[in-house]
C-alpha cells in the first residue's frame, strides 16, 4: 500500500468497475433492489399510520386553547357540567373577551350510530353540540360546502373527514336521531384536526334530543395568550363551587390519543423490525451469491495489485448503492400508495371514531432510507470480507 491517496483511487476504480458492470448482473441486482424496496415500502406504510394519527392530534390543539371538564372524567364523553358551573367558568380571567362576550363555548359531546362507508357496519360517530364562540375558540374552521347550521334549528354541519368516511352525511341528506330528522346543511374543514371527524349542531338542539336538560359536558375557551393558562386554571380549580379539571387543548388531545398511538406504534415497530430482519437475511443471501459469482473477477483484481481493504470497501459501496436505490424506490412507492390515504378508526379513550389520513412524512422517508442503508451495509459486509480473504490462486481457478 502506498498511501491514502492511492488507496482512495483504488477504491474509486474498483467501485466504478463494479457499478458499470451492474447491467450484466441484472437478475441479482433486481432481486436485491426489489427486495429492499418492498421492505422499505411496507415499513414506511405501516409507520405512516401512526404519523397521520399523531398529526391530527397535533393540529387539533392550539397553544392558547383550553378545555374544562368535570374533575375525574377522562374524556368529554363522561364529563358533566351544570348550567351554573358553565357560567362561572365563562367569567374566569384569562379568556379573550370580544364585543359579543367571552370566547367560551359550552359543549356537549355524544356519539351517534352511523354506518361506515367502507364496511357498511355501524360506527360511533362523534356528535358535538356547540355555542357560537366555538368557531373562534378553534382555529382554522372553514365551511367548504353548503352553509353553517342556523342556531336554534334542527340542522347539522358535518366535518370533512366524517362526510368521507360515514354514509349518509352528504349535504342534503338527513340523519335520524331517535324521533328527529336532522338535515345536513354543510360540510366544514378544520385543517385536518380532530373536529373534521365530528358532526356539529347547536348545543341546545342536542340537549333536547339526548335528554340532557340544561347540562353540558365541557367548556372550550380561547385564552388571551398561552401564558394566561396558569392563572385561568388556578382560578377555576380553587373555586369551591366548581369541581373541574382544566387542560390545555394540545395536552387534552395528546392524552386522548395516547393509547391508540401507543398500540399503533408498538405494532408498527414490531412489524417493521421483523421485516427489516428478514430483509437483512435476504440481502446477505443475495450479496453472497452476487459476490460468489464474481470470485474470479475479484481474484483477478487482487492479483493485479488492488489491496484487500479497497476491494472490501468498494463492494460495500456497491451494496450500499443498490440498497439506497431500493430504499428510494420503496419510499416513493409508499408515498404514492399511502400518503393521504383516508381512513377512520375508533379511539378507545373517547369511544368515538376519529378520521385521519396516513401521512408519509419526510422524517419517515429518511427513516426508510436509513433502514435501507443499514440493510445494505450489513448485507454487504460479510460477503465482501469473505471475497477479499479468498486465496488468490484458488479463486482464479474457480468456475
Amino acid at each position, binding site marked *: 500500500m502506498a498511501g491514502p491517496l492511492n488507496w482512495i483511487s483504488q477504491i474509486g476504480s474498483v467501485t466504478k468497475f463494479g457499478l458499470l458492470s451492474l447491467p450484466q448482473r441484472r*437478475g*441479482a441486482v433486481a*432481486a436485491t433492489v*426489489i*427486495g429492499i424496496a*418492498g*421492505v422499505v*415500502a*411496507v415499513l414506511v406504510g*405501516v409507520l405512516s399510520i401512526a404519523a397521520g394519527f399523531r398529526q391530527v392530534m397535533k393540529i387539533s390543539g392550539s397553544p392558547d386553547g383550553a378545555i374544562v371538564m368535570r374533575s*375525574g*372524567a*377522562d*374524556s368529554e*364523553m*363522561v364529563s358533566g357540567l351544570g348550567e351554573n358551573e358553565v357560567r362561572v367558568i365563562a367569567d374566569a380571567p384569562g379568556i379573550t373577551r370580544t364585543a359579543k362576550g367571552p370566547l367560551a363555548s359550552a359543549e356537549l359531546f*355524544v*356519539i*351517534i*350510530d352511523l354506518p*361506515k362507508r*367502507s*364496511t357498511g*357496519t*355501524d*360506527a*360511533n360517530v362523534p*356528535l358535538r353540540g356547540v355555542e357560537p364562540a366555538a368557531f373562534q375558540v378553534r382555529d382554522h374552521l372553514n365551511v367548504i360546502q353548503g352553509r353553517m347550521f342556523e342556531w336554534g334549528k334542527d340542522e347539522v354541519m358535518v366535518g370533512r373527514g366524517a362526510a368521507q368516511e360515514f354514509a349518509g352525511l352528504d349535504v342534503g341528506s338527513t340523519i335520524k*336521531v*331517535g*324521533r328527529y330528522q336532522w338535515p345536513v346543511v354543510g360540510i366544514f374543514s378544520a385543517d385536518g384536526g380532530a373536529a373534521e371527524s365530528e358532526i356539529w349542531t347547536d348545543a341546545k338542539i342536542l340537549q333536547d*334530543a*339526548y*335528554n340532557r336538560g340544561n347540562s353540558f359536558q365541557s367548556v372550550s375557551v380561547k385564552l388571551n395568550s398561552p401564558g394566561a393558562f396558569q392563572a385561568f386554571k388556578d382560578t377555576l380549580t380553587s373555586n369551591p363551587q366548581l369541581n373541574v379539571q382544566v387542560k390545555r387543548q394540545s395536552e387534552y388531545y395528546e392524552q386522548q390519543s395516547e*393509547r391508540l398511538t*401507543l*398500540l399503533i406504534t*408498538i*405494532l408498527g415497530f*414490531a*412489524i417493521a423490525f*421483523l*421485516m427489516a*430482519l*428478514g*430483509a437483512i*437475511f*435476504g440481502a*446477505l*443471501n*443475495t450479496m*453472497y*451469491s452476487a459476490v460468489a459469482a464474481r470470485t474470479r473477477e475479484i481474484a483477478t483484481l487482487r492479483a493485479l495489485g488492488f489491496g484487500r481493504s479497497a476491494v472490501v470497501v468498494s463492494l460495500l459501496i456497491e451494496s450500499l448503492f443498490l440498497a439506497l436505490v431500493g430504499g428510494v424506490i420503496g419510499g416513493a412507492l409508499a408515498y404514492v400508495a399511502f400518503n393521504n390515504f383516508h*381512513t*377512520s*378508526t*375508533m379511539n*378507545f379513550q373517547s*369511544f368515538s*371514531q376519529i378520521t385521519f389520513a396516513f401521512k408519509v412524512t419526510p422524517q419517515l422517508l429518511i427513516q426508510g432510507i436509513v433502514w435501507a442503508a443499514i440493510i445494505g451495509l450489513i448485507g454487504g459486509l460479510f460477503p465482501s470480507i469473505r471475497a477479499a480473504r479468498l486465496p488468490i490462486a484458488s479463486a482464479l481457478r474457480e468456475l
Partner: protein
Amino acid sequence: MKFLHLIWCNLRRKKLRTSLTLLSIIVAFILFGFLAAIQEALVGGVALAGADRLIVREKVSIINLLPVSYEARMDRIPGVDFSTHQTWFGGIYQDPKNFFMQNPVEPEKFLKIHPEIILPPDEEKAWLATRTGAIVGRRTAERFGWKIGDKIPIRSTIWAQANGNLTWTFDIVGIYDGKDKGTDTTPLFFRYDYYDEARQQGKGQVGWYTIRIKDPSQAAEVAKRVDAEFENSPAETKTEPEGAFIQGWASQLGNIVLIVAAILSAVFFTILLVTGNTMAQAVRERTGELGVLKAIGFTNAQVVALVLAESCLLTVMGGMVGLGLALAITPIIAQPLAGLLPLFYLPARALLIGFGLSIALGLVTGIFPALQAMRLRVADALRRM
C-alpha cells in the same frame, strides 16, 4: 422417501446460502404468526359469539341508556328465553393504563346466559350472598395479584355514589375462567343491585341487554320483534345477534383483515423472490448432475419432483420453526399489550393456515427451476459438468 437423503445433501451443499434462505423464511413466518395473533385479538371474538344470544342497545347511540323496566317486556316476547342487562362502568384501577372492563350485572342470570364463564359453585354462592361482591377473570386477577377476599377500589369516570364519592370498593368473592382459549377473562363483574342503589344518577337505567333466544335459527325474526316492541318509545332499541355486534365493533377499528392481508402479501412476495432466486441458482449450479441423473434413468417427472421436494423441504422447515417461534414469543408480547389488547394469542387455525402456506410457498418457488430442470437435454447438460 428414499431420496430424502439426496435432497438433504443437496441442501447442505451451500450451507450458508441455505441457512440464510431458511432464516428469511423463518422471519416471514414469525411475522405471519404475529399478524395472525393481532387479527385474532381484534376480530376473533366473532367466532366465539353465542349463536343463541342477541344484543339490544339504544338505537340512536350506544352511550344512551335503556330503562331496566324493558327486561320484563323483553322476556314476554315470543322466541325469547330470558334476558339480562349490563352497564358500562368506566372505572380506573390505580392507573388508566391498567384498563379492563368492569360491568354491573344480575349475577344469576349473567352466569346462566354466559356458559363460557366458569365459576366454582361455592364462589357463585358467595357472590349471591355478598352485595358488594365481585367476580374477576383469571387474567386480570393474575395481572394484579388479586386473591379471593381482597378489597379492590375502583374509581369510576362516570358514576358517583350518593355521597359524591367516585371510588367504589368491591370484594373479590370469585375468580372465573373461560371455557375456550379465546374467552376474555379480563373483565370484572359486580352486582347491579348494589350499583343501582348506591349510584347518584341514572337509577333504573342500564347500558344494554343480552337476550337468549330459544331457537338460534330464529335470531333475525326475534331481533325484529324486540325492536318493534320498543318502537316509538322514548328509548328505541337496536337488536342484533351477538356475532354481528362484535363484528361491527371490530370493524370500527378499521378494515383490520384487509390491512393484515396486505402486509402479509407484501412480505410473502418478497420472500418468494429471495427463495425463488436461491432455488433457481441451486438448479443452475447442478445442471451437470441433473444431466447425469437423467442419463441414468430418472424420468422427467422424478427430476421435477426432486427439485420441488427440495424447495418444499426448505420452506416447510422454515415455516415450522417460524410458527413455533411465533407461538413461543406471543405470550411474552401479550404482557405489555395487556391493557390495549386483552386477548393476544396464536389460534390453532392460524398454525394450520401457516403450514399450508409454507407448502404452497415451496411449490411456487420450486416450479420454474423444476421445469427448467425437466427440459434439460441430457447431452447438453452432461457437457456442462
